[in-house]
C-alpha cells in the first residue's frame, strides 16, 4: 500500500537559494543604498565628491608631493623670481624650515646642555599619565598623589633649577602662622567635643609637608638656574595647560562645594567667582594678569611673565572646572547624600568618602574635555608675548634665513597638525571613558 497520495505537483525538496541580485550586494549594493538611494542623494553625493576632488588633490600636492623636503636655507624654498631654483608660480610646503626649527618649536630657547632636564620632566609626565588614564591599571591613589603632588614639585625644580630664595623672615612668618593654625584647630576641636589630637596631628602633617616642599625647592641641587624667558615652545604649552588643570582641580572642587553650600555668603561668593571668570574672554584675563596684576602686588614683590600668565589661566580654568564638577555632584542621587547623613558622617566626611569619589568619576570625560579646551586656549599666551608653541612659530617668521611666502602657511599647518593629534586623541579617550562609565545605566 502506498500511503503517499499522488501529489506530484507538490515539491518534495528545497531549491537552493538564488544569489541576491548583483545590484544589492557587494560594493555596488552598498553604493546604491548609501550613495545613490534617491535623486537628491545622488546629486548630493556627486556634489560632495566634486568638492572633495577640488580640495583633496590640491592640498596633498601642496603639503606632500610638490613640497620641498631638504634644504639648508630659504633658497631651497624660493622660486627663480625670489632667487631660488623652483619654477615661477610654485607654492607648496617648505618642510626643511620646520625641521630646522623643530628644536625651538619643542623646547624654546632652553640651553642645549640642560635639555636632559626637560626630557626627564617629559618622561616623568608621560610615565605618570599613561597608567593614570588606563582604567585597568591599579594604584590610582598613589598615581594621583604622584601626578598632582610630587610631579609638579619635581618638574618645577628640574625646569627652573630650584634654589629659590626664601629669606629668614619667610620662615619666621611661617612658624608663627603654623602655630596659630594649630592652636585654632585645637581650640575648635576641643570646643566641639571631638577628639582634638587627631585633627591637630593631621594639620601638623599638612603644614610640615608644605614646609618640606618649600625646603625642597629652595635647596641647591647644583642645577643651573634657567630663567623662564628661556622656556618656550611646546614644553611651555604643556607647562601652562598642566598647571592650569592641576591647580583647577582642587580649587574647582572647593568652589563646586561652595556653590552647593547651604550658607548664603559662601554660595554667593562661589557664584560670583565662577560666573565672573566664565563671563569674560580668556584674553582679557591674560591682559589683566600681565598688566593689572603687578599694580596689585606689594612693594618688592614681583612675578615674572610666565607666573602671571599661569595665575590668569588657573583662575579661568578653575571656574570652568567648578562647573564640570558641580554637574557631576548634581548627578549623584539624593539618596547618597541622605544615606551618608544617616550613617552619621559629617559634611566633610560624606563629601570626601561618598559624594566626591562618585562625582569625580562620572565627570572624567568632562575634565578631559576641559583639558582639551584649556590646551587649545594656551595658544592665547602668545598674544601677551610668551613664546609658547604658537608664539615660537610666529617668532620664527621674522628669521630672514627662512623667509619665503610659503613659510607662514607651512608652520601653521605643522602647528595645526600637532594640536590636532593631541586634541583628537584626548577626545577619543574622553569618548572611551564615557562609554565605559555609561554601561551601568543601560
Amino acid at each position, binding site marked *: 500500500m502506498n500511503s503517499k497520495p499522488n501529489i506530484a505537483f507538490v515539491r518534495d525538496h528545497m531549491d537552493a537559494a538564488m544569489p541576491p541580485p548583483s545590484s544589492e550586494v557587494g560594493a555596488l549594493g552598498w553604493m546604491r543604498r*548609501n*550613495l545613490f*538611494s534617491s535623486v537628491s*542623494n545622488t546629486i*548630493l*553625493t556627486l556634489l*560632495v*565628491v566634486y568638492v*572633495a576632488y577640488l580640495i583633496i588633490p590640491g592640498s596633498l600636492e601642496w603639503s606632500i608631493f610638490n613640497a620641498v623636503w631638504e634644504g639648508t636655507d630659504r633658497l631651497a624654498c624660493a622660486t627663480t623670481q625670489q632667487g631660488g631654483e623652483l619654477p615661477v608660480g610654485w607654492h607648496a610646503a617648505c618642510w626643511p624650515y620646520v625641521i630646522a626649527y623643530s628644536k625651538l618649536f619643542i623646547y624654546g630657547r632652553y640651553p642645549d646642555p640642560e635639555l636632559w632636564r626637560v626630557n626627564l620632566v617629559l618622561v616623568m609626565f608621560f610615565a605618570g599619565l599613561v597608567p593614570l588614564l588606563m582604567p585597568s591599571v591599579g594604584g590610582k591613589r598613589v598615581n594621583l598623589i604622584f601626578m598632582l603632588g610630587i610631579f609638579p614639585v619635581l618638574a618645577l625644580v628640574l625646569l627652573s633649577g630650584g634654589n629659590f630664595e626664601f629669606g629668614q623672615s619667610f620662615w619666621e612668618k611661617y612658624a608663627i602662622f603654623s602655630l596659630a593654625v594649630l592652636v585654632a584647630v585645637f581650640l*575648635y576641636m576641643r*570646643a*566641639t*567635643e571631638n577628639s582634638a589630637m587627631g585633627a591637630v596631628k593631621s594639620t601638623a602633617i599638612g603644614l610640615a609637608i608644605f614646609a618640606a616642599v618649600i625646603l625642597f625647592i629652595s635647596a641647591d641641587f647644583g642645577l643651573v638656574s634657567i630663567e623662564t624667558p628661556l622656556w618656550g615652545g611646546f614644553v611651555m604649552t604643556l607647562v601652562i595647560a598642566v598647571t592650569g588643570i592641576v591647580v583647577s582641580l582642587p580649587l574647582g572642587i572647593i568652589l563646586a562645594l561652595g556653590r552647593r553650600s*547651604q*550658607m*548664603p*555668603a*559662601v554660595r554667593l*561668593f562661589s557664584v560670583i567667582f565662577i*560666573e*565672573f571668570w*566664565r*563671563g*569674560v*574672554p*580668556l*584674553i*582679557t*584675563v591674560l*591682559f*589683566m594678569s600681565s*598688566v*593689572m596684576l*603687578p*599694580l*596689585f*602686588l*606689594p*612693594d618688592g614683590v614681583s612675578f615674572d611673565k610666565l607666573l602671571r600668565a599661569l595665575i590668569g589661566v588657573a583662575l579661568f580654568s578653575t571656574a570652568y572646572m567648578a562647573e564640570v564638577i558641580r554637574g557631576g555632584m548634581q548627578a549623584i542621587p539624593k539618596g547618597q547624600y541622605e544615606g551618608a547623613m544617616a550613617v552619621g558622617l559629617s559634611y566633610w566626611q560624606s563629601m570626601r568618602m561618598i559624594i566626591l569619589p562618585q562625582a569625580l568619576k562620572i565627570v572624567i570625560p568632562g575634565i578631559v574635555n576641559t583639558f*582639551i579646551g584649556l590646551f*587649545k*586656549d594656551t*595658544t*592665547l599666551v*602668545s*598674544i601677551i608675548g610668551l613664546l609658547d608653541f*604658537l608664539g615660537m612659530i*610666529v617668532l620664527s617668521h621674522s628669521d630672514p634665513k627662512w623667509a619665503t*611666502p610659503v613659510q*607662514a*602657511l607651512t608652520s*601653521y599647518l605643522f*602647528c*595645526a597638525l600637532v*594640536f*590636532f593629534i593631541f*586634541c*583628537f586623541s584626548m*577626545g577619543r579617550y574622553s569618548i572611551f571613558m564615557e562609554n565605559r562609565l555609561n554601561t551601568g545605566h543601560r
Partner: protein
Amino acid sequence: MAEENTASTTEKPKVALLNDPKFRSYIFQGLLLAVIVWFFWGLASNAAHNLAKAGIAQGFGFLDKSAGFGINFSPFIDYVETSSYGTVFWVGLQNTLLIAVIGIILATILGFTVGVARLSSNWVVAKVATVYVEALRNVPLLLQILIWYKGVGALLPSVKNTVDMGAFGQLNTKAWFAPKVVLADGAGLVFGAFVAACVITYFINRWATRRQMLTGQTFPVFLTAIALMVLLPLITYFLKGQPMSLEYATLGRFGPKGGARVIPELMAMLVALTTYTAAFIAEIVRAGILAVPAGQSEASAALGLQRGQALRLVVIPQAMRVIIPPLTSQYLNLTKNSSLAVAIAYPDLMAVFGGTALNQTGQAVEILSMTMLTYLAISLVTAMFMNWYNSRMTLVER
C-alpha cells in the same frame, strides 16, 4: 502625662555652641567675608600706592580726552583721530557686536546643516561632515584665525589686480568692496511694510492654530507668510518710487572707491569664528536629534504624518529642548572668542580699547575693568535671553 511628654521633647538638647549648625555657619561666613574684605582692601591699598608711585592718572577722566589714533573700520559710528577715548570704546563695542551677531547667525546655519549632515543616510555626506567637525574642533581657534588671515589672506589679489566680482563688488588685499545699500526718502516705509507683514503673520498664525484646533482644517501659514513678507515690502518699494538702491565701488586710480568696505580682518575673523563654532554647534545638534527616541518618529509615521511633518512637528521641537542650553554657551563662546581679534588687529573692543587705548593712557585698572565688565554684561544679557527662550521651550512637567 501627655503634657509632660511634650515638655520633654520640646526642650532643646544641650550642645556646645560651636556644634550648633546655625551658629557655626555664621562663624564660617563671617570668616569668609573677613578674608575677602581683607584681600580686596590689600589689593586696593597696594594699587593706590603703586599707581601714585608710577605717576599714573586715576579715574575715568581720560574718556573725554582725544585719543589721537586712527581706527580703520567703523561702519556705523563716525570716528576721527581727534575723537575721545569714550568714542573709541563705543567703536570697539560696535565692532565686537557686529562680529558676534553676524557670526552667531552664520554659525547657527552652518552648524545645523553640518549636524544634520552627520546623521545623513548618505555615506559620503556623513563622513565629510565628520571630518569637518573633527578637523575644526581640534585645532586652536587662534591658529585658525591666523591661518585664514595670514595664510589664506596672502592669496588675495593686490590692489593693482583688483578682482571684479560683478554683482558682489570688488576684492583685493585691502578690502572687499561690497555693494552698499543706499537709502532714500521712503525707505523707512519699506521696512515698515516688512514689520507689518511680520505682525500680520503672527495674527494669521494664531487664527490658523485656533481654527485647526476647532475644525481640523489646516491653513498654509508658511506660504502665506512668505508671500506677505516678500510682496508687501516689494509693493511699497515700487509705490514709493524705489527708495533703495545699491551703490557699487568704482575703480579709481588708487583702487576701488565707495561701496561698503569690508576689511580682510573682519572676513578672516568671521570665517574662522563661524566655521569653528559651527563644528561645536553641529555636535550639539546631532546629540539633540539622537536624544529624541526613535519611537517618536515611528509614532508620527503611524499617525500618518509625512517625513517632513514628523521632523517639523515632532522631532525638532523635542530636540530643541536638548539643543538650546548648550547652544547658548556656544553663542557666548563665540562672542567671547571674538576678542581674539586683537591678534590680527581687527579693531574690536579688546584691540582698540583694551589694547591701544590702554597702551596710550596706561590706566590698566579702569580700562580693563570696563572691558571685562562689558564682556560680562554681553554674556549675561545673552544668557538671560536664551534662558527665557529655553523656559518657553521646556517640557512642562507635573
